């Protein structure tokens, strides 16, 4: 019975967020009417003042009652709550006094002024409880208070203390509004190592070395539909990167003092950590064939021209300005078409020209596309003479020269491409011996000359009539 009564009380308490807005609005309006009634033409507002003061006062009392009930159901930060509660009671009392004075036809303006002031203070305190005390100021501090915990890049991330530089900002931005100094839902605070270790009413939040047994991770990893999922679905969620980092920190021992470099790092974590050093937090692991630095948008007009020519030009990803271009559907290729690419040379990183009649002369305009990472030139008309032009594309990582007239001598000229990692020479005249020499000459490059065969086996063509006897 007691339990039921408590639940009913809790239920009524939940109307607090709805009710609180009534006294704020109505009492403000009452104060406005009172101020206006100084002028003769607004004298007729007298009745309205009475009505608004009565409803305002009643709703203020109702808000106080529901607020009191709500405060019993959850753990809120006590000093803020204490202030909010007594200011709210003051609002109710002052509004009652103003109403009394008004009915007695006495001076109400000073009372109304005090009332407005109290309403504002109470409202602000209430807002601080629900949204966090830095809600108002956050807009100034980190560009709108978005969901990115790392507002600024962290220079030299490996030298920082993992907890302070990486984990704390995540907890601060995604957890603290309910599990911080102002509010401790589930009696959990996550703003200080001692509280994190202590945990909440369900026990420890973090079990060092065991991310999947830590209540913190368990709640985060639950599907968003699950009622135990954290953060609550309507609050900003952790990104994949946040989760990976938390998981990493807990699995390496949930240590509060160690530096990043002292903790074991998988390749994935390494690249996420690396991304924290750059200006923009990268959600996905950057691939080696995508530059890390962002670029401005390519000229719409130039892109439109390329599209009209039948070239498939698309950004490499929805949130990227880098472009890829594929000539596969181009009819009647003309070397001049390559000039269309020049206006987007900063953005263009992947280019497919396979099977097009690209000649050595045309390579001059290709050489200007200095940002290319990937270049497909298979089955084009290029020869050794054109290759020096390609050295200018210093960023080149992948190049396909299969089915062209290049020779081993010609390919040697590509020595200057320091970033080259993959080179395809299938269907060229390069002999096995020359290939071996090239591989020695380009130790960092994976050279693929193909020529694979699948040797015919007896079984390939015979049909079995019965089981093979062993």
């Amino acid at each position, binding site marked *: 019975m007691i339990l039921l009564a408590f639940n009913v009380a809790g239920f009524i308490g939940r109307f607090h967020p709805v009710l609180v807005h009534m006294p704020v609005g109505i009492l403000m309006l009452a104060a406005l009417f009172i101020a206006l009634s100084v002028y003769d033409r607004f004298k007729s507002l007298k009745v309205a003042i009475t009505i608004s003061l009565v409803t305002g006062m009643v709703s203020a009392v109702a808000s106080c009652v529901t607020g009191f009930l709500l405060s019993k159901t959850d753990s809120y930060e006590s000093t803020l709550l204490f202030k909010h509660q007594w200011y709210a009671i003051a609002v109710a009392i002052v509004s009652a006094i103003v109403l009394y004075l008004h009915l007695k036809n006495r001076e109400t303006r000073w009372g109304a002024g005090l009332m407005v002031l109290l309403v504002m203070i109470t409202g602000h305190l209430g807002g601080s409880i629900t949204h966090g005390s830095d809600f108002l100021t956050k807009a100034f501090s980190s560009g709108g208070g978005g969901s990115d915990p790392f507002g600024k890049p962290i220079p030299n991330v490996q030298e920082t203390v993992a907890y302070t530089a990486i984990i704390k900002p995540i907890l601060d931005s995604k957890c603290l509004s309910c599990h911080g100094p102002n509010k401790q839902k589930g009696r959990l605070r996550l703003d200080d190592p001692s509280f994190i270790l202590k945990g909440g009413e369900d026990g420890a939040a973090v079990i060092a070395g065991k991310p999947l047994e830590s209540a913190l991770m368990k709640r985060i990893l639950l*599907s968003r*539909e699950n009622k135990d999922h954290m953060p609550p679905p309507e609050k900003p969620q952790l990104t994949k990167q946040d989760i990976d980092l938390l998981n990493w920190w807990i699995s390496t021992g949930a240590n509060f003092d160690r530096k990043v470099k002292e903790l074991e790092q998988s390749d994935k974590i390494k690249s996420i950590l690396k991304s924290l050093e750059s200006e923009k937090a990268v*959600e*996905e692991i950057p*691939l080696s*064939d*995508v530059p890390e630095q962002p670029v401005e948008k390519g000229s719409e007009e130039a892109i439109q021209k390329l599209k009209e020519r*039948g070239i*498939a*030009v*698309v*950004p*490499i*990803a*929805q*949130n*990227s300005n880098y472009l890829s271009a*594929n000539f*596969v*559907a181009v009819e009647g290729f003309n070397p001049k078409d390559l000039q269309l690419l020049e206006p987007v040379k900063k953005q263009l990183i992947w280019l497919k020209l*396979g099977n097009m009649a690209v000649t050595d002369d045309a390579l001059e305009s290709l050489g200007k596309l200095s940002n290319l990472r990937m270049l*497909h030139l*298979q089955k084009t008309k290029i020869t050794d003479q054109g290759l020096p032009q390609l050295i200018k594309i210093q960023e080149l990582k*992948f190049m*396909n020269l*299969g089915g062209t007239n290049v020779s081993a001598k010609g390919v040697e000229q590509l020595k200057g491409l320091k970033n080259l990692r*993959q080179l*395809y020479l*299938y269907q060229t005249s390069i002999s096995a011996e020359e290939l071996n020499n090239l591989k020695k000459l380009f130790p960092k490059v994976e050279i*693929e*000359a*193909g*020529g*694979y*065969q*699948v040797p*015919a*086996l007896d*079984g*390939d*063509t*015979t*049909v*079995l*009539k*019965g*089981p*093979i006897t*062993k």
Partner: protein
Amino acid sequence: MSERQNQKLSKEAEHAVLQQYTRRHFLKDGAMGFGALALGSLLGGCFGKSSASAHTLFDASNPLASRPPQFPGKAKSVIYIHMAGAPSQLELFSYKPELAKLDGLDCPQSLLEGKKFAFIRGVPKMLGPQAVFRQHGKSGLWLSDNLPHLATVADEIAMLNAVTTDQFNHAPAQLLMHTGSARLGRPSIGAWVTYGMGTENKNLPGFVVLTSGGNNPDAGKSVWGSGFLPSVYQGVQCRSEGDPVLFIKDPSGMDRDLRKASIDAINKVNQEQYAEYKDPEILSRISQYEMAYKMQISVPDVMNINDEPQYIHEMYGTQPGKTSFANNVLLARKLVEKGVRFVQLFDWGWDTHGDSAGNAVDIGLVNKCRKVDRPITALLLDLKQRGLLDETLVIWGQEFGRTPMQENREGKKMPFKGRDHHSAAFNMWMAGGGIKGGVTYGETDEIGYNIVSGKTEAYDIQATILNQLGFDHEKLTFESQGRNFRLTDLSGKVINEIIA
């Protein structure tokens, strides 16, 4: 025409027009037309807040235009080879020496309790592996002698040892694998991918389907259907014998110019219809007519394997002019080279129940393996030498696996050695497209009956494929019937363990 007939006709036309205006149509148009009004914003909520994002991907006037993925994906295209009928993992990929010791013994009751089988009744006998297994490559991958060629490229493959499904009949299991639902009506994975990325070659469809083995898969064309996605994203079935696409040739007596003129005329009428009803399906239809016209030239060209050099034919074991799995595999490579996004191969005839020699795990299965082993191996090597393996995801798929017990249809002994459908544990593999080579993921118990670790569901495979192409499977959605749908429905986890 009599007056009465005339009246009847105009009434019918009026009806047809009215049918276009459904209640939904009215509400939606109303909501947009009076967008500034409160009504609009209120109703807007009813249509789902993400309707704007759901439609940004679909550009009705050019639905197949190449589009960027959500993040830079490793794979640009997919060749998904589905062995329809479900080959026996116990004779191909799953080495179970313990099972050999149990050969011929009665299946323990504990394995049968509460289980449902398609054909097994009563107490079946255990059936040991009917193939010799060896380790291959640097990774030491266990493969049976039924796939001697594939063994040479073992280090390119990521083997999924613990795939599982909840369907034990072919059609629903195939649907689950390809559409994320065992029931009809959902778009297939190829349709989702073309919806997400379009196609790089405007003259070819983005999603091509090739079948071999004498039959289409049991689930019919729904396994490459577009479901509730605009129909332009459904798979286009091509044939390697005769006309590559049925009904694409000009009818006799109609030359290409006349064809063009008639398509233009039809499209003009359709444009007028669109102006009136704003139904995006009309634009899809227009672009499909145009695509078909372009395909008259481009498809026969790309579907012709006669021009391939002799050594390529020897490599794949292809014979031009025939319908064969090998031909389809070679075509798949050509299509991917030409910028086709998703090539789906179905090979029928792997349903080795043991009811005939052709369906015996020690006869028919071996013959099926001989038909696919060489072309698949050639495909991996050929993609590799052309610099395409890194950006082409190749998948060996099947709808389920086969039981470690010998099938005893209707409780009787079968004439040949065969195995029943088994949904709890089977194998699939992936290669290329940013997948790690020479790794395995998941384990099954000593007889391959149940999964021990690394459980992999259809949704996980779908999530992984989308991930390799640059999509978060949770964010590639389409609004239908008032809610957002996605391929993986409410499940799916990217198999990070096999990603390079």
